[in-house]
């Protein structure tokens, strides 16, 4: 009868997508552990998540608050989560596979001195947890066995469906005040600077057009920009194009860049190395434009056009403009 405790990130009380994905996995774990599914939420409006979480089978919401805790503070969140887990005698503490989720669980692992399994896909409970996790950004999977007094793990983002529970719950909200020391609070977000980037952010775009070495230079990205504009999308690039200095690193899609999940991804002049593909595996569809029929990207695309992007894209832009005028 041990609880499974899930860290739920939220924006003004509205749970984040990756946290709802996490709850699909956490609900299975709670059922296997025969314990309640508990959620921990931080921040002023953390109590507000309770309304949204009943549909996902959350039975208890713990709003973690502390006088010194105004903004995101990774060590303090980790400490708070660890103390709450001890109080609930939780069998597992789980977090979404986001920047914050990974960071907070690393702190929980350090505080409890227990291992953390990052970016899990499937988890079977058999006393220990037999799990599959992502390595190499998801281009390789590791089967592993996690055996610890409390199991700590993060769920790989965008790999678990968001599913409501068979039976909705009506979770109550309990406040939890951890005992924190100054050391836990010395790293805290001081302020947030809003970016002045115009247009659709890569991570949220429904259409992403991107270019690689085949584009040949920074000027020819104009054609890709135009295509993206016509489709209401965003422009990305491969690491090769960034290394050439043609595009800023912010545009890079891949293992060490942005992860995208558009309805359609249109890579132009990109060969499709493993490191690039892990950034775009969230795409529903891929339409590749490439001169090389042997390029790896062709094997990973739904549709391909064999040809020079410099010839195809301008005509495509023209055709889309005409189609829109009709």
């Amino acid at each position, binding site marked *: 009868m041990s609880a499974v405790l899930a860290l739920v990130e939220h924006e003004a009380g509205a749970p984040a997508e990756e946290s709802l994905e996490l709850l699909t996995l956490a609900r299975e774990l709670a059922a296997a552990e025969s314990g309640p599914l508990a959620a921990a939420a931080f921040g002023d409006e953390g109590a507000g998540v309770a309304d949204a979480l009943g549909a996902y089978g959350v039975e208890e919401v713990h709003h973690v608050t502390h006088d010194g805790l105004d903004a995101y503070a990774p060590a303090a969140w980790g400490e708070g989560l660890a103390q709450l887990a001890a109080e609930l005698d939780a069998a597992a503490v789980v977090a979404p596979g986001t920047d914050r989720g990974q960071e907070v669980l*690393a702190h929980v692992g350090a505080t409890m001195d227990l291992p953390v399994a*990052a970016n899990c896909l499937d988890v079977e409970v058999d006393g220990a947890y037999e799990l599959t996790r992502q390595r190499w950004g998801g281009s*390789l999977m590791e089967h592993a066995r996690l055996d610890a007094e409390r199991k700590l793990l993060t769920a790989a983002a965008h790999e678990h469906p968001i599913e409501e529970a068979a039976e909705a719950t009506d979770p109550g909200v309990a406040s939890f005040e951890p005992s924190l020391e100054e050391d836990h609070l010395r790293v805290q977000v001081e302020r*947030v600077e809003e*970016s002045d980037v115009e247009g659709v952010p890569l991570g949220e775009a429904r259409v992403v057009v991107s270019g690689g070495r085949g584009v040949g230079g920074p000027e020819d990205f104009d054609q890709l920009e135009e295509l993206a504009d016509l489709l*209401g999308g965003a422009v990305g690039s491969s690491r090769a194009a960034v290394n050439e200095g043609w595009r800023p690193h912010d545009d890079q899609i891949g293992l060490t860049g942005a992860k995208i999940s558009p309805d359609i991804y249109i890579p132009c002049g990109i060969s499709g190395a493993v490191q690039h593909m892990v950034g775009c595996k969230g795409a529903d569809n891929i339409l590749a434009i490439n001169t090389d029929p042997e390029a790896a990207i062709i094997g990973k695309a739904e549709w391909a056009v*064999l040809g020079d992007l410099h010839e195809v894209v301008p005509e495509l832009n023209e055709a889309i403009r005409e189609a829109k005028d009709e």
Partner: protein
Amino acid sequence: MDVLTCIKRVPDTGASIVLTDDQQDIDASNLGFTMSPHEECAIEEAVQQVEAHGGSVTVLTLGPEEATEQLRTGLAMEADDATLLETDGDEWSARATASAIADAVREDDGVAHDLLLFGNESADAANYQVGVRVARELGLPCVAGVKTLDVEDGTATAKREVAGGEEVYEVDLPAVVTVKEGINEPRYASMRAKMQARRTEVAQREPERRDAAGTLEMIQLEAPEEDDSAAEILGEGPDAVSDIVRVLDEEVEVL
């Protein structure tokens, strides 16, 4: 200012990853080795900070003797010293790796590091933990996932990207910072620097392997199923344009 940068030797994978027959490792017999792009940027950041503020850069790795190759890459990028915490090549857990690095930092009584830099996560295992665990073991503050770092008067201002902007953190040194690619553009080592790096002595130590109470044990690796169904070829060159428009309009409905 003395900066310690920690890196990890990993295979330089190409278009696909091939496993050994026993599925315990990547078949690296035809591969070269490298370090994670995040870590290359961590070395560059260390060198730039020291160029601006004076001091020295030490690059450290825990791994087999062959990892000396990656330390020399760091030296060729203008790091001053290199330390190998030599293992027999087994992969150590994030906890054991962090403890060994913390031990090495504590043993360096002559050198008090002001800044300890890591990559946000390793390219291969991607545990997202070593930097945080080292910080917690040494009682230092840790900022993770940093894309901009400024140091002034013993205070580090670090920024990390979030949806719609950047979070700003301020911490007093000494501190641990884990960085992401994009924080800078790593330099290409000159031939002269590479030659010099080959002559620099690499300090070697035998780390003690200490694990946490629980275990996370790898059973085997598996390459995900490839969707190798061939793409539908819409056509060659501009002749394919009308079919692209049809796909965009009718199949994905983004027009």
